[in-house]
């Protein structure tokens, strides 16, 4: 079975919500729609206080190339545009809308019929995707149209669809692949047309055999799409690791997937592309997993972007008694939340409740140089060394030891017998080295 070559871990899978049919969560009284997604600039508000909006109406216009449009996920009245705390702990501008009814723009096709043919040209597809505000739904929320725009001098050879879902607990992509297989496959053909490639590879971890079967079934109805089961190993769904697993090619250090002719898109993003291009529906809702060891009924839910997490939690059984930590996303790379007043962003894949017994960290002890962090690093780095040099602020040594290659997957911290906060320090080191590299570029100009 295919997999990436070096390092990796296999944490307890805990996919409690696997196979749970998606349910639609009712509308909240108010939504708070963030204008900034993690990557890129915040978009510029297109509405003002007091404006009435419809579902799907543009409320934030992309500011520059690496930025994405934002649409209203509800109908109602704009009450204010103000800063709101996001899952990453930053305050960013957001549009607050009081929900009135559920009135959609007439241009959006709400019929359940699957539309298979697409007559648009490559550039038209990318333009449509940009207009619809689609960003990567795997977590990094990078604007999709930017990823699809192949820079001059490079050529895309293969489209890679990420259905690995290697994070423990998460099942939102899994469920989408079961319920929307046909739409995902059409989304893939649209993306293939957009980047002008003849071949697409869908990587799915082998712990989702039903999803593999379903996607394979629909892949047979089109040309050039191949489904490849992957070994269950974290971080199989990391972009560089996935490309290596599926094509054997290694993205060079400091490079992008396009350097080896690949463009990677998540399955949920692919579904959003289908809806945008075929149904004229902008990205205003997504599937999120609500789960945890003490959650009585873990499940997968369709949620409108901007819905406060407190509303989602209230509708799905409330906060378990023993909760000690609430995470937006998976346990390996998700963000711990200070409260539930944060709203669902385009990149929010899950709400995970961690019991208080597992919320803390073990006591930090001396590094015993067991080399587990080195052996498990999927990027071939030496986390113990990077942590040590970060603590001492030795930026030159950090750069020489390729701290910028770190993908922050957390495998090193996960395996460390001394509970050392390796990835915390490496993040700090990356931040400092990143500043150094940028200041060097400024000096050169």
């Amino acid at each position, binding site marked *: 079975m295919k997999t990436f070559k070096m390092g990796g871990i296999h944490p307890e899978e805990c996919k409690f919500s696997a196979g749970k049919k998606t349910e639609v969560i009712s509308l909240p009284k108010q939504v708070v729609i963030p204008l900034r997604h993690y990557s890129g600039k915040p978009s510029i508000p297109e509405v003002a206080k007091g404006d009435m909006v419809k579902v799907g109406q543009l409320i934030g216009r992309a500011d520059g190339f690496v930025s994405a449009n934002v649409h209203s996920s509800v109908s109602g009245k704009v009450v204010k545009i103000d800063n709101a705390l996001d899952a990453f702990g930053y305050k960013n501008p957001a549009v607050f809308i009081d929900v009135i009814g559920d009135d959609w723009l007439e241009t959006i096709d709400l019929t359940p019929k699957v539309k298979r043919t697409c007559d648009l040209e490559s550039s038209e597809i990318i333009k449509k995707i940009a207009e619809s505000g689609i960003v990567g739904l795997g977590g990094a929320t990078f604007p999709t149209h930017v990823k699809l725009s192949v820079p001059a001098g490079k050529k895309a050879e293969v489209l890679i669809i990420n259905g690995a879902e290697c994070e423990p607990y998460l099942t939102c992509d899994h469920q989408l692949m079961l319920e929307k297989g046909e739409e995902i496959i059409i989304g893939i053909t649209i993306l293939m047309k957009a980047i002008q490639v003849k071949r697409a590879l869908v990587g799915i971890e082998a712990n989702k055999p039903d999803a593999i079967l379903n996607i394979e079934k629909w892949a047979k109805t089109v040309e050039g799409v191949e489904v490849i089961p992957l070994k269950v190993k974290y971080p199989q769904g990391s972009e560089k690791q996935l490309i290596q697993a599926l094509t054997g090619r290694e993205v060079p250090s400091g490079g992008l997937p396009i350097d080896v002719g690949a463009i990677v898109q998540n399955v949920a993003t692919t579904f959003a592309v289908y809806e945008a291009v075929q149904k004229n529906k902008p990205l205003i809702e997504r599937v999120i997993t609500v789960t945890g060891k003490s959650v009585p009924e873990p499940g997968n839910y369709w949620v409108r972007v901007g819905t406060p997490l407190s509303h989602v939690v209230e509708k799905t059984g409330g906060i378990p008694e023993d909760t000690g*930590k*609430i995470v937006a996303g998976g346990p*390996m790379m998700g963000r711990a939340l200070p409260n539930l007043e944060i709203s669902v962003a385009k990149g929010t894949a899950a709400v995970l409740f961690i019991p208080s017994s597992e919320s803390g960290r073990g006591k930090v002890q001396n590094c015993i140089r067991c080399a587990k962090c080195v052996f498990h690093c999927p990027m071939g780095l030496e986390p113990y060394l990077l942590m040590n040099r970060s603590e001492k602020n030795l930026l030159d040594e950090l750069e020489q030891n390729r701290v910028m290659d770190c993908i922050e997957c957390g495998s090193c911290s996960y395996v460390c017998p001394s509970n050392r906060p390796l990835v915390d320090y490496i993040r700090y080191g990356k931040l400092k080295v990143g500043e150094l590299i940028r200041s060097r570029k400024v000096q050169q100009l």
Partner: protein
Amino acid sequence: MNKLVVSPSPHVHSGNSIQKEMKSVLIALIPAYLVALYYFGVGALIVSVTSVLSCVLFEYLIQKFILKGEKTITDCSAIVTGLLLAFNLPSNLPIWIVIIGALVAIGVGKMSFGGLGNNPFNPALVGRVFLLISFPVQMTSWPRPIPFNPAYMDAETSATALTALKEHLENIPSALDMFIGNMGGSMGEVSTLALLLGFAYLLYRRTISWHIPITILFTVFVMTGIFYLVDPQTYASPLVHLMTGGLMLGAIFMATDFVTSPMTKRGMFVYGIGIGVITVVIRLFGSYPEGVSFAILIMNAFTPLINTYIKPKRFGEVRKK
């Protein structure tokens, strides 16, 4: 609701700990310990218990009264050091010498550098080599293996296979005896079979990787093999070298000590080859019949250098087009 914990990812941990790693090593040492108790009887029991108790006690006292740090004996590493030290000693060694060895191992080898994780040399080997140089007579008179031997310091002694080879004596044990451990030697090193069982357990538990032990054993096998092919009259067969002396114990349990061995696979190969070559050179051309301890300590000294210059294979090491 309880107060929420907010911390950076990852939010899960493997549950691994220093204590668990050390316990795996202790479990892996059980077969060799049972063989030692069987062939060396009461002596093996007295030496091992003394060594373990004094190592733990010395670590406790030094931590409490000199370093004044938090209690560290619960991580079980002192027990491992104590047991490994005992494994490297003859079972008829007087108690007071064992205690001196434990003091040097823990006091000088480990705690003087700041405790577990900071010591450049394998503490058990520091203790053993100190005793070997200070008490050469007591350290090189090994009891003859007799099942459930009730004798301790008065046990009947015999030469080890390596000494016999060095001095061209005739009474070399049979291959089977060497494999199961029916021969004279330090209490924990005699049984190749028991040590290999321990190795299998450590690999299964992923406490250590195969790289260091296999590289050492392979290097010794190849080098002694070449000498054997050139002149089988003078040099013993490579299998005899693999199964005698402290090679198995050293390669599996001493050279793989986390703290003092390299951090990368490539570094482990260099380290393993170094230990193998130095061991063979000492065994064949040095004045000591046995060279594993010295070889490991010498390569321990090179470990920081190996870590500095030998880097792992990076992802995306290829040049950008």
